[in-house]
């Protein structure tokens, strides 16, 4: 048992690590924005009276939540290919991550919608607000405010899960690590560095979401309620 670590040999590849980390953040950013939209739509869809739409949204959410991301990524990757559509690994990765996080977002948003007291919607109707106004001001924004902490941890988990995209050769952080370790034969050191980078990325994301929360929800900032 002799453990010899040689970090400098791996650390001199820092530009590649940096590029990988940037791509990981890009993946996370696009999937978060698109996934939030998709998830909100699915949550709204599940609440409609149209049983066809509600059923379709339920099938989508349950299917995604009960299968591994790795399988979903391969299905999207090979599914698009078998339809004759050719996209870059990055595009496929964003698509798969969006579909994945959309389902989780939908569940969180549904919980937020259900937490809106019925009386508030009735009051808004009594004040003659339009349907759109009710949806935006009375349901959506307060619901987001309620579930904001759950949403943000889901998005941090998404950033970590984007590591799986290395399996379809999207050049994000884990793929960079796989390449560097096969080049330097310094696997343990490489993955230690990458693990540290992921911890830093997740702390940065948490801090970013905390700041964004302060900006988005001034009411909470004034009340001093922690997000």
């Amino acid at each position, binding site marked *: *048992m*002799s*453990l010899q*670590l040689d970090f400098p040999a791996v650390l001199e590849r820092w530009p590649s690590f940096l590029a990988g980390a940037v791509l990981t953040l890009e993946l996370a950013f696009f999937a978060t924005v698109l996934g939030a939209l998709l998830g909100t739509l699915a949550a709204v869809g599940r609440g409609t009276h149209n049983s066809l739409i509600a059923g379709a949204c339920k099938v989508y959410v*349950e*299917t995604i*939540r*009960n*299968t*591994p*991301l*790795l*399988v*979903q990524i*391969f*299905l999207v990757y*090979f*599914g698009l*290919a*078998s339809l004759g559509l050719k996209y870059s690994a990055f595009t496929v990765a964003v698509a798969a991550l969006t579909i994945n996080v959309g389902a989780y977002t939908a569940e969180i948003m549904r919980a937020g919608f259900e937490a809106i007291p019925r009386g508030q919607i009735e009051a808004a109707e009594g004040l003659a607000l339009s349907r759109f106004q009710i949806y935006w001001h009375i349901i959506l924004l307060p619901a987001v405010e309620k579930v904001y902490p759950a949403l943000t941890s889901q998005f941090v988990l998404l950033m*970590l*899960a*984007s*590591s*799986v995209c*290395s*399996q379809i050769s999207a050049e994000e952080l*884990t793929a960079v*690590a796989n390449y560097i*370790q096969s080049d330097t034969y310094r*696997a*343990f050191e490489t*993955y*230690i560095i*990458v*693990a540290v980078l*992921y*911890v830093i990325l*997740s*702390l940065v994301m948490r801090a970013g979401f905390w700041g964004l929360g302060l900006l988005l929800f001034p009411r909470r900032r004034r009340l001093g309620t922690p997000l």
Partner: protein
Amino acid sequence: MGGHLNINHLMFLGQGALWTIGLSLIALIGGGIVGFVIALARISPLKSVRLASAIYVQLIQGTPLLVILFLGYFGIAAIGLKVSPLVAAGASLTLYVAAYLGEIWRGCIQSVPKPQWEAAEGLALSRTQRMVKVILPQAIRIATPPTVGFMVQIIKNTSLASVVGFVELMRSGQIVNNSLFEPFAIYAIIAVTYFAMCYPLSLFSQRLERRMGRGRSNLAPA
């Protein structure tokens, strides 16, 4: 690139599915034991123990499982031991599951109502007695639905063990695909198999949650 999906392929996939269940159980039991220790350490009266366990949880929860698997696989090799994919995957998943279950269970232990802790103290129970006889029996009830829910995550996450060469369901699908090259059909079968394993657990977890909710609303009508 030859032949069609036949019974032998399906048998092979079935074997992979059994290994997925096996690896999930290893991760659940190993992670459960370590996670229980983590949960207790997180509420320890000693500040250093609390801090150390909090750092452990933060580090694991800030690292993707894929990287933890690689660390386990190459780390065991780096200290000069022979690695089998089963050991590497089992150890990595144990560490990973422990961090999450530890946090879930800490929350459950702490959500046992405060008067219960005070009453136990008032009855002059020792710290161990209070935990074993008063707090844990109630915490287990609270912890059941989220733990069953997390088992779904464990099953799904074992699919990542394929990257270190452990032949579970995902890896056996990749192997079958290498000989048949019908990726879409094979991964669809894999997806359906995972769904068949996970969905009953999801439903069970939801049902437990609803039952708990009923019990609680009976106690304290809102």
